[in-house]
């Protein structure tokens, strides 16, 4: 796990050192031509999704309505469902990468697990907010102790804890190992949390969320699939950038001490120069 960027399997794929290539980040930031293409696709996709979800697709009312008759609220599902699926995907990626850390012990998987957890937490927050907005109309309350809602909230806390643990450990090797185990435990906990909350709720009342009518077709199905693709693209873009950010951060931490010392020295000499200037 020696942090040698030139020997890393990621650095220098194809293009020689120093030039910026399709997947090579340009020196000033974490972007590259490839990530810019993905970002543009995500932006265009988001605009098209808004067009389909908010304008072109019909409201769930009238003669063609589904059994649930969601009305305009059906439009929330076009973001809520994809965002929720991406959040579970992100945590699954974290769990897989964590297992790979324990097996292969490489920096790549550790950084991937971290990046995916960060993005996953953002998507989980969005899942809970959109779900809550949906619930306020469907149930009349912002929060129901529904099985899915509750286990998603616990999932959020679990991975917030995972990220807090990462921040608390400074040694990269210790962090990689402990975080990998924390990530695996957190993910393994999801089914047992879900079952327990499900049973717990079913004691008092049947599940509150009516499932989205699975027999949808035509423009509604297309919009939902489009939402999936758009948010998946966004996830990929975020992953590329968060991963590179983690990578740069790791390199900075490697050099951390001497860089900080140099900055201190520069600051001190600048301060000396200014005070000298003032005195003159």
């Amino acid at each position: 796990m020696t942090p040698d960027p030139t020997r890393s399997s990621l650095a220098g794929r194809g293009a020689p050192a120093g030039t910026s290539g399709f997947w090579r980040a340009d020196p000033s930031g974490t972007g590259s031509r490839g990530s810019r293409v993905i970002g543009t696709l995500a932006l265009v996709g988001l605009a098209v999704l808004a067009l389909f979800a908010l304008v072109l697709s019909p409201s769930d009312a009238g003669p063609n309505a589904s059994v649930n008759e969601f009305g305009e609220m059906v439009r929330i599902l076009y973001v809520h469902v994809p965002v929720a699926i991406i959040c579970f995907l992100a945590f699954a990626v974290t769990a897989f990468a964590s297992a790979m850390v324990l097996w292969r012990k490489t920096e790549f998987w550790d950084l991937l697990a971290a990046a995916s957890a960060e993005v996953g937490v953002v998507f989980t927050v969005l899942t809970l907010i959109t779900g809550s907005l949906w619930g306020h109309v469907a149930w009349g309350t912002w929060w129901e102790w529904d099985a899915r809602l509750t286990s998603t909230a616990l999932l959020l806390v679990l991975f917030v804890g995972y990220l807090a643990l990462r921040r608390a450990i400074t040694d990269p090797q210790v962090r990689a190992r402990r975080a990998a185990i924390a990530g695996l435990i957190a993910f393994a906990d999801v089914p047992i949390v879900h079952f327990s909350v499900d049973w717990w709720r079913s004691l008092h009342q049947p599940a509150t969320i009516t499932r989205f009518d699975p027999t949808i077709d035509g423009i509604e199905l297309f919009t939902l699939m489009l939402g999936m693709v758009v948010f998946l693209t966004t996830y990929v873009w975020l992953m590329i950038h968060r991963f590179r950010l983690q990578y740069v951060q790791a390199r900075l931490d490697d050099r951390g001490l001497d860089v900080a010392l140099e900055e201190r020295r520069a600051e001190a000499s600048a301060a000396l120069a200014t005070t000298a200037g003032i005195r003159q």
Partner: protein
Amino acid sequence: MFRDAALVAGKDLRLEWRSRVTTNQVMPFAVLVLVLFAFALDPDRRILVEATPGLFWLAVLFSALLAIQRAFVVESIDGVRDGLRLSGLDPAGIFLGKAAGIAVHLLALELVLGAGVAVFYGAHLGSPVLLVLTCLAATTGLASAGSLYGVLAAGLRVRETILPLLLLPVVAPVLIGATQAFEAGFRGTPADGWRWFGLLAVFALMYTIIGLFAFDPLLEEA
């Protein structure tokens, strides 16, 4: 492995026998929590009787946090942690020993708290077999998840604050399952409680297995 586990557990229990931290500090704290719940909820035992199972297990969870922290602080002072690592003991054995030590502490706590709810909240022990088995399964789960997270947080500057954040969401199923099983146990309708006991047993088994495998990479670190 089991011999190593017995060694580690014996060491922790001897340490407790000499220092009396759990008996003199954690147990009074647990009873205090019961009294505080009564102050917060109501004086005439109406809500208290209904909420007894949940309050009992909340008190156990909070006291368990203290016991787990104690079990690993003991290791980090004087470099005992390095001693454990270099002692050539089987990591799985160390895990089992740690978990067993914590479990004994927790069982003692639950005994005191059980007496506490019987006296203060007027709890009626309807079906003792279910209650005892629930205690055993829940304690095993708490102790193994607790030792796992105890060692994850060990040696960190922020270990006191990060342990609850990591452990409490993970043991949420234990709180749910044990509370429901206790409700059935107090009511004297054990038939409702057995599936919760099953959930607790699965949780305990799962975390014991994870701990047996995870302690090796966790202890080999620099």
